[in-house]
């Protein structure tokens, strides 16, 4: 009988402890977040992304909050992934579905080589206007967010190629100033 009483007392104490802990937590729970929730997890930055306009005739700017990774490759990979996901507002995706960044190299002259996954070429469908938008959105987005890149070379699956859709040369580095 005394043993049962001790067990009951123990249970009551545990329950009281749990209740007290919950109450303490409630007291210290922070109020409403004063900034957008995504910025609480890690450092975030609003970056300019360029997508095709809804009518597919020009490029439109869409600022978006992205986590701020350290290092060139993660930064560029995040930009390419955001372009691949497409716009959240009006507009249309430019990069073919499945496109991702495999490697990125920035040499001392400011030449940035973007090595994209094979989906970039395999998934491309379009004429000259679409091809111009695809390359333009990539070059504009990268140059706006990586100012140290003075010229951009696009390769795919580790290999250089002549053209994405047969309309504009991609076998030479691109000058961002030529894609205004």
């Amino acid at each position, binding site marked *: 009988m005394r043993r049962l009483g001790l067990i009951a007392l123990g249970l009551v104490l545990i329950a009281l402890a749990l209740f007290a802990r919950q109450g303490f937590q409630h007291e210290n729970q922070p109020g409403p977040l004063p*900034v957008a929730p995504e910025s609480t997890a890690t450092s975030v930055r609003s970056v300019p992304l360029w997508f*095709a306009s809804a009518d597919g005739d020009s490029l439109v700017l869409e600022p978006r909050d992205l986590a701020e990774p350290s290092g060139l490759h993660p930064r560029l990979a995040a930009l390419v992934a955001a372009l691949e996901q497409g716009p959240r507002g009006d507009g249309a995706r430019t990069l073919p579905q499945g496109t991702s960044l495999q490697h990125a190299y920035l040499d001392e002259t400011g030449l940035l080589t973007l090595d994209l996954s094979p989906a970039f070429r395999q998934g491309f469908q379009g004429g000259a206007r679409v091809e111009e938008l695809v390359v333009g959105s990539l070059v504009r987005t990268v140059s706006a967010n990586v100012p140290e890149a003075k010229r951009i070379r696009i390769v795919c699956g580790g290999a250089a190629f002549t053209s994405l859709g047969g*309309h*504009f040369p991609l076998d030479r580095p691109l000058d961002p100033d030529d894609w205004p």
Partner: protein
Amino acid sequence: MNRALAAGVAAMLLAGARTGAAPPGSTAASAASVAADSARVPAGLGVPAVATVRVDGVDVVPANDLAWLLGAARSWNADVRKLVLTFGAHRLTFTDGNPFVIADDRTLELDHQVFSRAGELQVPVELARALPEDGGWPRLGYDARAGELRAAPADGYVGSPRVLVRAGTTELVIPTEHPELARVVGRGRSRFRMRFRGAFSGALPDSLPADALVHDVSVRATPGGLTFELAVDAAAAGWRWELSPSRDAVTLTLDRAAGALQPFAPEPPPGARPLRTVVLDPGHGGVDTGVQSDGVLEKTLTLDLAKALADELRRRAGAHVTLTRTDDRDMSQLGRSEVANAPKPDVVVSLHFGMSLDPRARGGAAWCAPASVSGAVLDPPGVPADRAHAPALLELLPWRDAATAHAVEGRALAEDLTAVLEHDGFGPMSVRERMPLALLGVTAPGVLLECGTLSNKEERARILAPNGIHRLAAAIATGLILWQHGGE
């Protein structure tokens, strides 16, 4: 986010670039500080700016907008209710309910507290005047009249162009904080283009002197800077691009006498052009099908169109027509340009069809070679003209850029072709200057012509109609004949 990139050309460049920070409190001091802030960061084309809001009598900017203005990464610590903005080598730390802002290792006291509203910190605009003026901190300015907080552009400002005419020479002097980053990017007389870094905080001339060699000046913002475009008089024989002696401006000199000046892009003599030999390049071929839409292959359509267009040109213009391919085969660009150059053509047209991201989109576009400039041409002041321009006289054109020597004629061709196609109901059409693959190594005026949008159901049906290809071929032939007659 309530962001507003400042757009439109400012009417004036406000005088008195810097004014010391006034003590807050009095009305007079506030008015003075508003004027000072407007002057320290003038409005203008391409100046980054965000809208401010007034909350309980305090003008504030939302923290996320401020971060965007500064290009800063944001990090929020909910436990201590602090927001850290990191940009370049600097950090700004704001605390909810606190007027103190930590700027790196300094403490700034604002007149009002930073506070939270609608889930976002709000920063009083007096931060603009409180930021340190040394150590490479960005320059911010609050414009109460415009209701915006502006950041001085990283590449500085470009000021009002001045046009000076003297003894047959026209000088265009454009002030810029970074003259070394300015360059000529298009040397066609009708579209002479200069690109600058920075934002435009000046005004274009209301009018130009009657005897000036420039008829029109326009400016537009482009990512990373500005592009000025001029219409240059046909009497101008050449141009020179140099750093001003004070090194705070660039000067474009246009002269009636050729001398040792840079040449404009070659132009044909006025009047009719020859159209004796035409090369048509049916796009794609072989394994490269081009775009596909509802079972229609672009490579097949381009070949059909090229054959129909060849018949039209032979019949209506008596032209000798060569096709780069006459059947369904793979062709490299080198192979195409060899075939294209062999008959020494008067014109080359590469035929394509497009496909849009928007199923409602219609029409097409023509791409022509840009009248670009190779090599650096900004001359230092005080260098004799003949020495300064020696490299220009020996300018070599890489083989792949051969078509740029025919850029003016190519542009005229693109405009004539698109005008006729629009008139005949194949529009909307546009003209774009970008070297297409099809013109690499081509030694003649040419265009890549996207004739229609196959992803548009109606347009596809019209092209595939019994007379569709022939109607299109007739319109293109009319455009070529229009170009032959000098656009008249």
